[in-house]
């Protein structure tokens, strides 16, 4: 009993250490957002009359219009994150904005005491598509150099935005906004971690590469959705209501990404894990191999796709829909509904179909399942396929909801672990419940604490669960020590 008391005390101390100190007052300085928009093909000729608006958390901070030299500047009150929008309507007809690598809308972080340069590039009308092709990577490099004052390292890692939650809102409004964002985030965690939990259940292996399978899905969708083939298909079908939506490059990209994710899972199981199990490699060693796989996957994606944060070009700018006190973009609403649909489908598959029952049986007790005639290797293969495609789906949704970058999956992996442990390691339903709870906890914690600590709170929950109920909410009580 006394050791229990000591452990609880120590965890309280740990929690206190996590609580933020008092932030120092920001130093006064000349923070502003500025830039110069030049005519294509010239080094000093500016373009006049382009409107730019700067906002923070939905509140407008200021607007600017480029002068005769194409220069503009918006003073901002303090260092922080701002949202910059260039009004595409105000660009003269002979030019258009180069959408790659970032579009008309940017999220930027202003440092204390210095201006932040936002670079927009114009190209002659009709050339944006051609110039955005990957063969001309030089233009992107120029932009990086020109952005002198920008510090990509200062971008907030691991922080998840909650759109539709503004600074000035009342507690109730904020609560509802964050709860909606939390549910969406939680559903994404749940979808991604069902596979993680089932893989642990069937093979007793913790898949540290699962986060990178999430990134893989998001990157695949990014690659497919920016292919010109799909945009031409979409243009041909754009008028037709349902077909037009299905033929949207991103929707097609999502479907292909899910297929690719499933294939990746199956290939890993068939050509790596099954042979390793055949060689009687110990579990500890298997963990290290999953880490090796995650390093290879993550850095190959970094080498191929670069370290830039991207957003999907489709469905980026959307009007909020209002349902009573709840405001949500149609994009997030679709994510919400599709996620719930997919989770219900997966749950009913696990509950009612033959293969689903077999999966649960193998996860419950591999030896018993094998001796009652289940082909354990086949079931494991299906579990990897299911896990891979679900994580890819979660990755696309996360990319749609936030941004796509090479570490997105690794950051989500920590939350997935928290969710899976909270729900019960090895159970599919536990992963769903736990993921949802972790998403909600992470978002709602920003009501009281800094958003930079979202992950820390999710982790604190995980440690408390390990202390009081290591088998998780839905896990069966067994010896885990």
């Amino acid at each position, binding site marked *: 009993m006394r050791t229990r008391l000591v452990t609880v005390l120590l965890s309280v101390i740990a929690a206190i250490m996590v609580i933020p100190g*008092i932030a120092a007052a920001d130093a006064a300085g000349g923070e502003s957002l500025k830039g110069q928009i030049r005519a294509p093909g010239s080094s000093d000729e500016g373009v006049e009359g382009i409107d730019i608006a700067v906002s923070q958390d939905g509140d407008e901070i200021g607007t600017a219009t480029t002068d005769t030299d194409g220069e503009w500047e918006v003073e901002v009150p303090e260092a922080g994150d701002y949202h910059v929008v260039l009004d595409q309507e105000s660009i003269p007809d002979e030019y258009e904005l180069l959408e790659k690598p970032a579009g008309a809308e940017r999220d930027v972080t202003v440092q204390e005491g210095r201006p932040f340069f936002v670079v927009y590039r114009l190209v002659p009308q009709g050339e944006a598509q051609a110039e955005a092709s990957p063969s001309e990577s030089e233009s992107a490099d120029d932009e990086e150099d020109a952005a002198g004052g920008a510090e990509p390292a200062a971008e907030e890692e691991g922080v998840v935005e909650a759109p539709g939650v503004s600074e000035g809102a009342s507690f109730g409004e904020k609560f509802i906004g964050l709860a909606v964002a939390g549910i969406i985030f939680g559903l994404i965690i749940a979808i991604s971690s069902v596979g993680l939990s089932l893989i642990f259940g069937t093979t007793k292996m913790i898949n540290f590469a699962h986060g990178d399978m999430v990134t893989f899905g998001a990157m695949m969708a990014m690659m497919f959705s920016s292919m010109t083939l799909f945009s031409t298909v979409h243009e041909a079908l754009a008028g037709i209501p349902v077909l037009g939506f299905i033929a949207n490059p991103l929707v097609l990209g999502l479907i292909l990404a899910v297929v690719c994710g499933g294939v990746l899972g199956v290939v890993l199981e068939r050509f790596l894990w099954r042979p390793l199990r055949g060689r009687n490699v110990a579990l500890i060693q298997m963990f290290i191999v999953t880490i090796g796989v995650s390093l290879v996957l993550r850095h190959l994606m970094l080498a191929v796709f670069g370290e830039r944060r991207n957003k999907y070009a489709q469905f980026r700018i959307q009007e909020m829909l209002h349902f009573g006190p709840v405001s949500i973009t149609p994009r997030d609403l679709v994510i919400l509904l599709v996620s719930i649909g997919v989770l219900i489908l997966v749950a009913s598959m696990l509950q009612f179909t033959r293969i689903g029952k077999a999966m649960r049986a193998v996860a419950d007790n591999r030896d018993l399942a094998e001796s009652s005639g289940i082909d354990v290797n086949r079931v494991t293969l299906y579990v990897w396929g299911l896990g891979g495609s679900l994580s890819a789906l979660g990755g696309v949704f996360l990319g749609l909801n936030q941004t796509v970058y090479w570490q997105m999956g690794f950051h989500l992996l920590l939350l997935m672990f928290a969710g899976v442990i909270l729900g019960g390691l090895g159970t599919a339903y536990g992963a769903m419940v736990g993921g949802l709870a972790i998403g909600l906890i992470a978002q709602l914690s920003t009501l009281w604490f800094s958003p930079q*600590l979202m992950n*820390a709170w999710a*982790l604190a929950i995980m440690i408390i669960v390990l202390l009081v109920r290591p088998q998780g909410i839905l896990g069966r009580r067994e010896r885990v*020590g």
Partner: protein
Amino acid sequence: MDLLQILTVSIETAIGPIAAIYVLAAIGLNIHFGYTGLLNFGQVGFMLVGAYGVAVSVTTFDLPLWLGLLASIVCAAILALLLGIPTLRLRADYLAIATIAVAEVLRLLYRAQFARPITGGVYGRNSFADGFYGINPIPPGSYGIGDVDFSADELWLMVVVWGLVAAALGITAALMHSPWGRVIKGIREDEDAVRSLGKDAFVYKMQSLVLGGVFGGLAGAMIALNQQNITPDQFMPQVTFYLWAMLLLGGAARTWGPVLGPVVMWFLLTAFDELLRSLASMDIVPFLETSQIGALRHAFVGLALILLIVYRPQGLIGDRKEMLVNVK
């Protein structure tokens, strides 16, 4: 392409301060994993608190350097206690998850906005190592054989770090041949058997976690002294995985394994790096930009980890039988 140049740079890295620092951290990891069987995937967390122990004490609180080093050790020990208490009673996989998560969250905490008054946030801390280089007894100049040479400051740091490595090796070897070490190795082989002999496995595991963590913290403090400028973002989880690859390459549960591994690995990595770089600059390999070399190097380490485990789990000088332990 100048092969001699590549060879020189690789040798300098392999015996230089950075390799020595990784040796120190790998010795800590060897105590955790090699001898006790603990799956610590967050060794970089210990290095982080160690590095900031020095940097924060000297710059933020104006303490002398030796107190800073003491603070590093204390911080690493506290982190080990906090990590161990909830997880050491559970199965090994729980410790693995908790360590990887805690190390990453620590990095996020240290770079957070509210921590800036203490840790300097994303900009980190710098100019705290003057006290260390001020007592450098080696007269300025360049020392070495042939093209392999080091400056006086580098040499001073190398002497200190390799000295620490020697001390750590001595401590580890002495401990592992003592009754304490036999209990520790017993825990790795069969925890229940150790319990049945009346030993409290939890306490022993905790002592091992603290000891290895302190070595990790010291390695972090040496990183701080080496660079004289630290930011949280250099303590990425990849550092831990590098350490794992190095330890497994050298051979876990061997006194000299964690020394051999990092030296060989740094030699290979630098050679790989320099080779790719010179190939890229000569435009021999298409589609290869210099910015991708770092990423490819990480991927190479990942591949090395997989191949090592599959084909030679005992590493260069390990004992295969010792590495066939299974988690219950």
